[in-house]
């Protein structure tokens, strides 16, 4: 007699499907670009063979491969961070930046890009310029890191999760105000440099920076994996989670740490990449028809990586020299697809408690 009790977790065939899609998107992103490199050549280059044109190997190794790896890591990082925030705050609109981590990063970058010569901040910035091309990433990391620290300290004290959410929002408004103020008093070319950063790009991470970037993302993802069980317990709300023996405050600390690391490091190296973090968890929920994080978390990770790769391919507008802003592409192409997926299912409302 078949057991009436369903199996939990992700079905193996879904995992295989998601990995296959990711692999396809990965090859696609190496193939397409301002120069078209045929897929079989890409595979030959990756496996250490000689391509038909020697310059292609350079294009792949110096530009496309780091960019593709970055896109995958950022896509996975932001999707997982978004999922964690949506569950923690029981709010479908929560995104990875809800606690102000990206605001902190923006502030750091704004101080560097816009603040040069603007009085008190200048000494700080000339110090940073020693790092050369790393200075933006460093400034953003410092900004994101200090917000992260502040949020973590507050999260240990605050009993109520909603208070934390409001604090994060308020902090976001505050930093946005300061950034706006800096923009207001800056020269136009600096403002443009800042908005270039704010448009998001996966192209800026070199192999050297990758040595910092990827371990941070991977450790953030690792923590999120350990947090799957607490996230599931939190589905019923803080009170039930406590009654199940969960130390809610400690779980919250680690979840916020993981999400903020993921969001912070992504923003530091690629600018604030919106949309993935809110949208992908919803798509995963809709397609898998579950709220169980044992399925949702790995699925969001894989879907987010694929989504970011595809968005990046489109942003490169293959065959042309144009590079469109990443955030624009994500929203323009992503919104219709994701609306379709989500509206097809009717249980978005039921996915979250009020």
């Amino acid at each position, binding site marked *: 007699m078949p057991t009436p009790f369903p199996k939990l977790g992700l079905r193996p065939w879904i995992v295989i499907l998601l990995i296959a899609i990711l692999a396809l998107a990965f090859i696609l992103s190496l193939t397409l670009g301002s120069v078209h490199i045929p897929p079989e050549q890409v595979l030959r280059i990756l496996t250490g063979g000689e391509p038909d044109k020697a310059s292609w190997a350079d294009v792949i190794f110096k530009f496309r491969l780091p960019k593709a790896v970055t896109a995958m890591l950022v896509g996975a990082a932001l999707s997982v961070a978004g999922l964690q925030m949506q569950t923690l705050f029981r709010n479908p609109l929560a995104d990875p930046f809800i606690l102000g981590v990206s605001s902190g990063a923006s502030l750091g970058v704004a101080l560097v890009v816009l603040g040069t010569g603007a009085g008190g901040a200048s000494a700080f910035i000339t110090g940073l310029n020693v790092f050369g091309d790393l200075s933006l990433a460093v400034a953003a990391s410092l900004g994101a890191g200090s917000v992260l620290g502040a949020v973590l300290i507050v999260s240990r004290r605050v009993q109520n999760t909603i208070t934390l959410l409001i604090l994060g929002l308020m902090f976001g408004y505050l930093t946005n105000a300061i950034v706006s103020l800096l923009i207001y008093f800056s020269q136009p070319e600096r403002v443009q440099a800042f908005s270039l950063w704010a448009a998001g790009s996966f192209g800026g991470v070199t192999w050297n920076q990758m040595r910092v970037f990827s371990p941070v993302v991977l450790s953030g993802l690792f923590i999120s994996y350990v947090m799957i069980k607490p996230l599931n317990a939190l589905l019923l709300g803080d009170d039930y989670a406590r009654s199940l023996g969960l130390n809610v405050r400690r779980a919250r600390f680690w979840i916020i740490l993981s999400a903020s690391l993921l969001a912070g490091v992504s923003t530091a190296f690629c600018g604030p990449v919106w949309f993935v973090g809110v949208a992908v968890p919803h798509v995963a929920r809709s397609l898998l028809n579950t709220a169980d994080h044992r399925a949702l978390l790995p699925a969001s990770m894989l879907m987010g990586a694929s989504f970011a790769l595809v968005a990046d391919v489109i942003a490169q507008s293959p065959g042309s020299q144009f590079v469109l802003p990443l955030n624009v592409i994500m929203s323009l192409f992503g919104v219709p697809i994701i609306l379709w997926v989500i509206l097809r299912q009717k249980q978005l409302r039921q996915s*979250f408690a009020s």
Partner: protein
Amino acid sequence: MLSSTSLTIGYHQPLASGLNLQLRPAEMVCLIGPNGAGKSTLLRTLAGMQPPLKGSVKLGEADLHTLPALELAKQLAVVLTGRVEAGNLSAYALVTLGRHPYTDWRGKLTPRDEEAVQHAMRLTGCDVLASRPIHELSDGERQRVMIARGLAQEPKILLLDEPTAFLDLPRRVELLQLLKRLSRETNCAILLSTHDLDLALRIADKLWLLSSQGELHIGIPEELALNGSLARIFRSEGIEFDHASGAFKVHQPVCGPISLHGDKDGVALAWTWRALERIGYEVHNNGVRRPIHVDVLDAGHWQLTTPKGQSKHVTLESLITALPATCNLQPIT
């Protein structure tokens, strides 16, 4: 098993103090009291979700409020008030959350865990709902799933805060009967707060009666009815409790007395009584004839006697319409 000595509960102001409580295995206790008396606070304090202002709660030999959360979760489960929204989880996935205190860091269910979950679902009759998503379930089904989730913790004590609040009458009866059966079958002590006094009186093994003054009366339901505790507590809330019928008096007599006579065991007498009370008469059945008098004759016949004369009726409705139009008829002595 769960006990407290001179416990004071409340947030900042004490709501009730000097509480000496005891919950025993396989016992189903209903916590009754007016709104605001502190039923939820008492439950939350006993569940370890809120510290007591004074005194302590003991679970076996250990102090419940210093017990590690995981240890407590293996001995005590709660079902909180309010509808649970847990996204699109299947009922089965939701019940497995009850194994949280037992599973490893990945939350991997061992065969033993699966057995416990399935057992809990069978006991509560929600095994048939296993693959249904929570948001498709009715309130009654959802409540049963939440109880199964509590039982999956394999607790010694199950606390429920107004589990019947959203249910219609048949579901309420069903749920309380289920809880009573569970207390017997699992040897678990069950404490629930409820507003369904009538049902609690009939089903509970014991009542905890919390008044808005913060006094707690404990006893078996019949005892509390007999010694007047029930009547006393609810009188202060402006509701009369009738010792004899074991029910609240809903109607204030405004029409003066009427005497009623008929076969004591008859159903007809009881319903005639209710009809007369409903329209506002103070019904007497002690054999003394009043100026207005009703005889319940054999099946479906009534005879009404008023100072103006006698009439016979074959339906209750015609009897009632034949009663004096104004009901402020003064009694004739």
